[in-house]
């Protein structure tokens, strides 16, 4: 396995190099470029850690969506970037901070080296009950059966974050559309990409959600791909962000969490506990909840990128 270790070493060097670049770059745009590369590289690291589900999430969110969000902010904050550069903290202060951060890294590294052997694991427990859920992918089973409450709360957190972003709009714009994401100038190749890529991307997103029950994949990963394709059409200028006050927008956003909650409450009667699935129906219920959540999560992620309302409601 010497070649494998060499590949791992190379990956670690690359990831660390990108991280140092991201922290040390003088201006913001190269730093964010480094961060996107860092996210895409971490996908490979997650594959080496035998965690394809996480690799999918990292590829979709870590590199893609977060990068786009940060890039948008970068271009809008260019004017303030120069004036703030003067307030750099003094060299002694930076030195002290560097020393403390090194200590923290060293402490974590020591913990990594002293991790107990054999490692404690819940894998056998997760695997033992897998047949009861009807789902083949243990990570999906954890997310939607064993720890379904966490996932329900997570979809609520996403909505809360969106409400937080929306509440940053000035009062007179409430319920209006976010600022346009489109490129300022017409570009034929971008229009082409915006028309050809989303159909393929949506098929891939739905496929990732669908195979998530038995293979690496799942709703968050699939939903992120769908959200990215939606944002791509908006960046290509093929459509504008919707008005946030529209009833259908609100309905799509809450549909997933509401359906999840309803299925959970129905569990009181049908299976005797909150979020318990009746025997034999676990798989169809999980698939149905995933479908509803996918739509809501995709809409929420896309609108998080689009940001708060920036113009009054059209009447």
């Amino acid at each position, binding site marked *: 396995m010497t*070649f*494998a270790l*060499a*590949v791992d070493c*190379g*990956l670690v*060097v*690359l990831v660390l*190099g990108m991280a140092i670049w991201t922290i040390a770059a003088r201006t913001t*745009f*190269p730093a964010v*470029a*480094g961060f*996107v*590369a860092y996210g*895409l*590289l971490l*996908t*490979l690291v997650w*594959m080496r850690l*035998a965690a*394809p*589900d996480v690799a*999918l999430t990292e*590829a*979709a969110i870590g*590199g*893609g969506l977060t*990068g*786009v969000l940060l*890039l*948008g902010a970068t*271009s*809008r*904050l*260019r*004017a*303030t970037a120069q*004036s703030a550069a003067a307030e750099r903290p003094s060299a002694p202060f930076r030195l002290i901070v560097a020393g403390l951060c090194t200590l923290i890294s060293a402490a974590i590294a020591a913990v990594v080296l002293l991790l107990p052997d054999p490692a404690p694991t819940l894998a056998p427990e997760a695997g033992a009950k897998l047949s009861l859920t009807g789902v083949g992918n243990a990570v999906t089973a954890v997310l939607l059966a064993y720890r379904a409450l966490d996932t329900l709360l997570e979809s609520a957190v996403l909505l809360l974050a969106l409400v937080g972003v929306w509440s940053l709009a*000035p009062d007179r714009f409430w319920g209006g559309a976010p*600022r346009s994401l489109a*490129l*300022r100038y017409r570009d034929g190749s*971008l229009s082409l*990409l915006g028309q050809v*890529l989303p159909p393929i991307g949506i098929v*891939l997103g739905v*496929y*990732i959600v669908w*195979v998530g029950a038995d*293979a*690496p*994949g799942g709703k968050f990963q699939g939903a992120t*791909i769908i959200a*990215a*394709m939606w*944002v791509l059409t908006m*960046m*290509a200028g093929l459509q504008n962000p919707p008005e946030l006050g529209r009833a259908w927008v609100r309905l799509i956003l809450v549909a997933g969490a509401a359906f999840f909650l309803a299925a959970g409450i129905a569990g009181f009667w049908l299976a005797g506990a909150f979020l318990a699935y009746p025997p034999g129906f676990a798989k169809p219920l999980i698939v149905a909840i995933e479908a509803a959540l996918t739509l809501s999560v995709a809409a929420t992620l896309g609108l998080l990128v689009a940001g708060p309302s*920036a113009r009054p409601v059209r009447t």
Partner: protein
Amino acid sequence: MPAEVIAAMAEFLLAVAGFVLATVALGLVRVLRGPADADRMMAPQLLGTGGIAALLLLGAATGMPGAIDVALTLTLLAAFASVAFVKGASEPADSDPNEGGGG
């Protein structure tokens, strides 16, 4: 197929994956240094091709499930990020009506 042939093939694919990764590293260093923003826009594209080549090779070498699905996702999101790079770099600082001028 005899076991040692399979093992040798896995080693070979791993070695090529490492090699491709090294070329990606070289390219990344060059691309991120600029000087123009347009150079930096190539970073996600570089990882979109080199990264998925390494990923596919790793997947074939170690028989990881889902490697191809991850590669497909990486391709789509790398293209998406590239578009955002072009948009982010080619726009002047803000001119939003409700945000009166630069800070």
